[in-house]
């Protein structure tokens, strides 16, 4: 009896693994207009129109934030991610509070995005409904594991600093020795 149960469980597990990923991950519900707002934002960001994407933010956002607040951090972060290779919607949640904005009804839309430099990243878009105009963007952020790259930078950076300084020390020492010998020769000749 137990053997059968284990066998069925193993088979079910194998079947689940063989099924396409999309098939068993139920697509989250995202209102059409909200999806359009996300796609408009992605289109601009993917085209490098980071500053221009401020136009897609909601009037509420524009009331409290200047263009600099929108693209300030975004510029440096997004540019370093590289081009987008793939993007998939994974989650939609509701949120009532957002830092720097008045309490309200917000939609948190999460996509898993494959950037060239960071293949496993999440793009999170917060939307607010604008009466009569669909949805406006109120926040956009990218989350990814920074540590693998950070460790690489630390290791390589320390290595290159020490390598260059040791190399300069060596060359300076050799040149110093040659110069000291060269200067010592005439002095010895003079004495001689």
């Amino acid at each position, binding site marked *: 009896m137990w053997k059968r149960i284990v066998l069925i469980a193993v088979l079910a597990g194998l079947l689940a693994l063989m099924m396409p990923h999309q098939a068993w991950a139920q697509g989250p519900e995202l209102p059409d207009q909200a999806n359009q707002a996300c796609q408009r934002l992605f289109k601009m960001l993917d085209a490098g129109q980071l500053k221009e994407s401020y136009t897609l933010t909601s009037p509420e956002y524009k009331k409290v934030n200047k263009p600099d607040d929108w693209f300030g951090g975004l510029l440096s972060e997004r540019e370093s991610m590289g081009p987008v290779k793939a993007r998939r919607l994974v989650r939609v949640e509701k949120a009532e509070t957002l830092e720097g904005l008045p309490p309200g009804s917000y939609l948190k839309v999460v996509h898993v995005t494959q950037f060239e430099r960071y293949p496993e990243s999440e793009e999170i878009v917060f939307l607010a409904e604008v009466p009569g105009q669909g949805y406006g963007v109120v926040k956009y952020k990218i989350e990814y594991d920074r540590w693998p790259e950070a460790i690489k930078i630390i290791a390589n950076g320390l290595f290159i*600093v020490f390598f260059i300084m040791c190399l300069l020390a060596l060359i300076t020492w050799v040149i110093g020795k040659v110069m000291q010998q060269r200067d010592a020769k005439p002095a010895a000749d003079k004495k001689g």
Partner: protein
Amino acid sequence: MLGIRTGFGELAQNPGQLIMIVVGLGFIYLAIKKEWEPYELLPIGAGMLLANLPLTGLTTPPAPGLAPGMAGILGIILKYGLYTWTILPQFIFFGIGALTDFGPLIANPRSFILGAAAQIGIYTSFAGAIYLGFNIKEACSIGIIGGADGPTTIYTTGLLAPDIMGITATAAYSYMAMVAIIQPPIIKLLTSQKERAIYMKPMLRKVSKTEKILFPIYATIIIILLIPKSAPLVGLLLLGNLFRESGVVERLSNTAQNELINIITILLMLGIGASMPADKVLNPRTLMVLFLGLAAFAIGTAGGVLLGKVMSWLSKEPYNPMIGAAGVSAVPMSARIVQHMGQQANKRNHLLMHAMGPNVAGVIGSAVAGGYFLSYFGKLF
């Protein structure tokens, strides 16, 4: 009543600007009364003050379509000097090169390694910034504060994370001003009285003119071939030094050491002050940057001292490990601290020339570290 809009109402609506004005006045006070890095902190404070007084338009950057005369002087300095062309920190490096005597470093090449060890603070704070949620470019800019090198901090941040440039630059210069407060406790913590009292012969060997001329040439070629993006900093630093050591362009060298560096300092520091409007600075991230910068500075000092201890242990001749603390490139303050503490421990000790070696090596080390960060992101520019 006057027929114009005054700034009082605006100031009442934006208390953040008022806070920044007070901070700017604080910098001016510290520069004048306490003489803390006055050449830097006075114009930075003035820039902060001017940039945060409302309705002046001083920070309006030049832009296509803007009516003639509408761009503000600080906006012009910021745009062309710091954000777009970033020429100001490079010219400062040129002047620093003309002012620097690399003789103590050439006489004692071991100092290069101490200059490298003191850069450990940069990478530790970089890791701290990543932990606190800064993105990688911002983390590079925060880490570089630990190099205790203003122009490198400004140049690197201007290219990688211009949004936090004002605060990283101010942190770098403020901490340089506070070397006498930050470094001694760390040195004391890591060395014994006996170690601090180690006597070293005051004189280093005499360095020939040929060596001094050759040094900026081969150092430029090696560093730039290995890290091409460090060229704007290292190239100009060593070019300035070549002008100085060649002895054939005295007028140019004098100009670089005096008029040029003074003019650029005014423009650069005013620009740094102006890059700190209240809405960009008054947030929790600023406190984190200040904390990480301080940690970078402290860890850099510790890294230098610890390697100094290793060298002291390996060296055949007496070697005072405190010298390592001068590896942070706060020239010449760090070297002076070592000299002062050395004399406190042993009145016969004159460590200044020994400490100047790692001190100027630190300038090269931090420029190399900054250049590596820029090269890492190089393909994005």
